[in-house]
């Protein structure tokens, strides 16, 4: 007898699982897919897509390798592996003290001693992605909002909103003043949130900015801090690119502003840092939250159980970064190399007739292609982006993915490739611009 098999009602997933808030259908991510399918390789695929949409730092690997070779105990726990056992079992969410001290020392070196950090205020997370999400969980409830200046890193839409249920309200910045954050823009964003009955819990800035590649000036930082104090909200400063400022004197951390104010109103300030950009180690998953608020430190530490850094990795990096000579040397050389790359790409673009925002930091430049747009619209920008991807074979990030209010701007990464590849990319742009002129 035939047995009827009823199709079982399919078991459902959650709203989080089904939602699109992970944002992975954006152009930003679509470009990556195109690269994955046809990646440029000097030897085997010279006509492939060159990846200029990924802000990775590959210019200083040799320095890291040298350091690892010198500090073999970093990778092997020494001969006979003493210390391996404790390390293997170590899952204390305080993190290894040696590692926290090493991170603090690195952060201080980057700021040229302009600010002091306390290892007891360092909370470790598996990457800055986790740090930003964790802070959002801690500072805001579902339905609340964080104010974020535009243009901003596309990943924030996912990292700050997906599981937290928190909203982003943009602080709109534009080219009229080089995209600097103004008090008017801050107030306007706050009022907009209020008018929608949304409670603002904090401002989240990235300094140096991604995608602009520019540091925030001291006076603007003061204004932002004053604004946050007036509204009694938090200030999160994502300083993930702080070691990638081309000239050390041009970076001012919010930590320095607080120190100058003798730490008044500092309980509302939290800094996010990571080694993914400055040390070029994104695969290691090393992020930190540095908070001046004791409760945030305690809570973040507890919540970091969901995102601890491998004790093996902590051990390895503690060995490397405790070598202060290496750290100082690395930071200097890395800066110089990034600056040279930046100057090369700006030069190359200028001779092709393309201008960029004057930048002083980061792994990318903010390129102005608005003169090339058919119409000053997002659709035109995306058309141009598609042309860049499919014809010129360059993956660059359209400003609309970064919520830029003005169409035509693109973020172009220059540190994730060899010098030769950069030249190939510039040549392609030259050719394209020439074709357009004819």
């Amino acid at each position, binding site marked *: 007898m035939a047995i009827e098999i009823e199709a079982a009602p399919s078991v459902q*997933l959650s*709203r*989080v699982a089904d939602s699109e808030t992970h944002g992975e259908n954006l152009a930003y991510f679509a470009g990556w897919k195109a690269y994955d399918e046809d990646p440029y390789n000097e030897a085997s695929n010279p006509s492939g897509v060159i990846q200029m949409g990924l802000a990775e730092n590959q210019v200083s*690997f040799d320095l890291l390798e040298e350091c690892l070779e010198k500090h073999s105990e970093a990778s092997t726990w020494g001969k006979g592996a003493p210390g391996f056992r404790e390390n293997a079992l170590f899952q204390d969410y305080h993190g290894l003290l040696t590692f926290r001290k090493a991170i603090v020392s690195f952060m201080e070196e980057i700021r040229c001693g302009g600010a002091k950090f306390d290892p007891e205020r360092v909370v470790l997370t598996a990457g800055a992605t986790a740090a930003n999400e964790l802070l959002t969980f801690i500072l805001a409830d579902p339905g609340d909002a964080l104010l974020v200046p535009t243009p901003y890193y596309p990943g924030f839409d996912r990292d700050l909103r997906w599981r937290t249920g928190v909203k982003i309200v943009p602080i709109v910045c534009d080219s009229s003043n080089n995209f600097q954050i103004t008090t008017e823009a801050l107030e306007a964003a706050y009022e907009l949130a209020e008018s929608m009955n949304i409670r603002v819990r904090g401002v989240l800035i990235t300094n140096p900015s991604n995608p602009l590649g520019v540091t925030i000036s001291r006076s603007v930082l003061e204004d932002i801090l004053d604004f946050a104090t007036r509204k009694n909200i938090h200030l999160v400063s994502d300083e993930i690119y702080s070691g990638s400022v081309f000239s050390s004197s041009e970076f001012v951390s919010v930590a320095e502003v607080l120190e100058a104010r003798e730490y008044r109103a500092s*309980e509302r300030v939290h800094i996010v840092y990571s080694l993914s950009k400055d040390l070029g180690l994104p*695969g290691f998953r090393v992020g930190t939250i540095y908070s001046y608020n004791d409760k945030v430190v305690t809570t973040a530490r507890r919540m970091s159980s969901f995102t601890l850094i491998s004790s093996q990795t902590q051990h390895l990096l503690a060995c490397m970064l405790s070598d202060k000579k290496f750290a100082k040397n690395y930071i200097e050389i890395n800066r110089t190399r990034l600056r040279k790359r930046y100057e090369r790409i700006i030069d190359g673009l200028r001779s092709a007739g393309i201008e960029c925002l004057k930048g002083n930091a980061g792994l990318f430049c903010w390129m102005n292609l608005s003169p090339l747009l058919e119409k000053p619209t997002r659709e035109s920008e995306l058309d141009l982006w598609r042309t860049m991807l499919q014809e010129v074979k360059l993956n660059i990030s359209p400003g609309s993915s970064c919520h830029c209010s003005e169409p035509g701007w693109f973020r172009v990464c220059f540190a994730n490739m060899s010098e030769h590849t950069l030249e190939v990319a510039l040549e392609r742009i030259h050719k394209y611009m020439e074709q357009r002129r004819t």
Partner: protein
Amino acid sequence: MRLIVPLQGIVQGRGGLILGSLIPCALFYFLQFHLKRRCSPSRPADLPRSASRSPLSTRGSLAPARLSDRAESIARPNESPYYVGLDRVSQDPFDEVENPGGIIQLGLSENRLCLDLIEEWLSENLTGAMIGHGGDKGHSGIGGITEYQPSDGLMELKVAMAGFMSKVLGRGASFDPSRIVLTAGATPAVEILCFCLADPGNAFIVPTPYYPGFDRDMTWRTGVELIPVHCRSADNFIPSIAALDQAFNQARKRGQRVRGILISNPSNPVGNLLPRETLHNLLDFAQEKNIHIISDEIFAGSIHGNEEFVSLAEILDAGEFDKNRVHILYGLSKDLSLAGFRVGVIYSYNDNVLAAAKKLTRFSSVSVPTQRLLISLLSDTSFIERYLETNRKRIREMYDLFVGGLKELGFKYVESSGGLYCWVDMSGLIRSYNEKGELQLWDKLLNVAKVNATPGSACHSIEPGWFRCCFTTLSRDNIRIVIERIRKVAEMCKPSR
């Protein structure tokens, strides 16, 4: 200033101060005045702010911005004896040489018996293992381990992990590397699954007693609730379908949607293995109610007894049940003692869950140097086989020693085949047969015997007096010390009954 006017009003009336109706007002105002001067800076930020700052406002800045409700509840110190005990041990840890009077840790299910084997392996194998032999893009040197990688883990590690899991969860169950999602430990693995399977306000049914960490891991940020379903010693702590059914129906009556059931097998804290028939019944139950079933099998490599371990994977391989609702949790913290390296596994038969879980791993990825090390370690199949066998043997030796001591003390315990701990019945020592009595005993054990064991109430056990005692962090000599210390407390407690 507001305060002064009413007081002046009181003072002006001659003899007015004495009038009964004025004194409470004065007292009230005085109290407010007094409290304002003494208030701490942590007042909520939603008090109205006036433009001119009152001289009574607190020193320096205004009250700082508040944290979220989620954070406020986490900020409070955790009073569960599970966590309190762990804290106390870290403040005063036993050490044979340095601190012989310190607290002996029986509350942390860690396995220290076989780390020497891994140390040996490292000394012989490590130089190439970590820096990596290139990987997909043909980078040599550090380039291979530093770049962004898929956040759910390198395929090479998934392949190695699939092989390892088929040995551990065993007996022919096969694992498909593409169904593996790697996470920074089992802690985020279970949380990610909850985010994928349930919405805030939904619930999971969890048979008790269960691992105290689930209360935090599954509910803190997800907004999900846990519905405990009690298992009894009379049933050998095997969940009864009738009880599960009742819990499900009660939840439905109060309008709460149950999304799944979470079991652990081998179970924590009891250490028993769920029989094949029970697993079939649980799968039937999940199917009937159209809910998910999560099986936490993290102790599968720590089976030291003779009972047969059956993984859900093995049952599903046979093909009778709907796979779409089944998810297995695993990790390397227990079986390989690598808790610090943060390696957890979600193994799901549901493609949509896999897709969502993979994306969520960006918040909890395994560090790539660690992945590289593990690819080498797990691929060394002869080492792994030797390790698993030796591990089982050594756990068994400690188990035998420990229960030998328990027998001397006259304690009953669950004869278990799995896990790093023993579920011991100390109810004979408690004064009042309830949670309070149990906690009093726990306190004596901690502060007098200087032994930290996990009381059953922290695990939601319905029968008072049970304690989970982990014995794999001890050396053979330590066990003797533990038994003697407990004996002292046992003797203290007996005359009072």
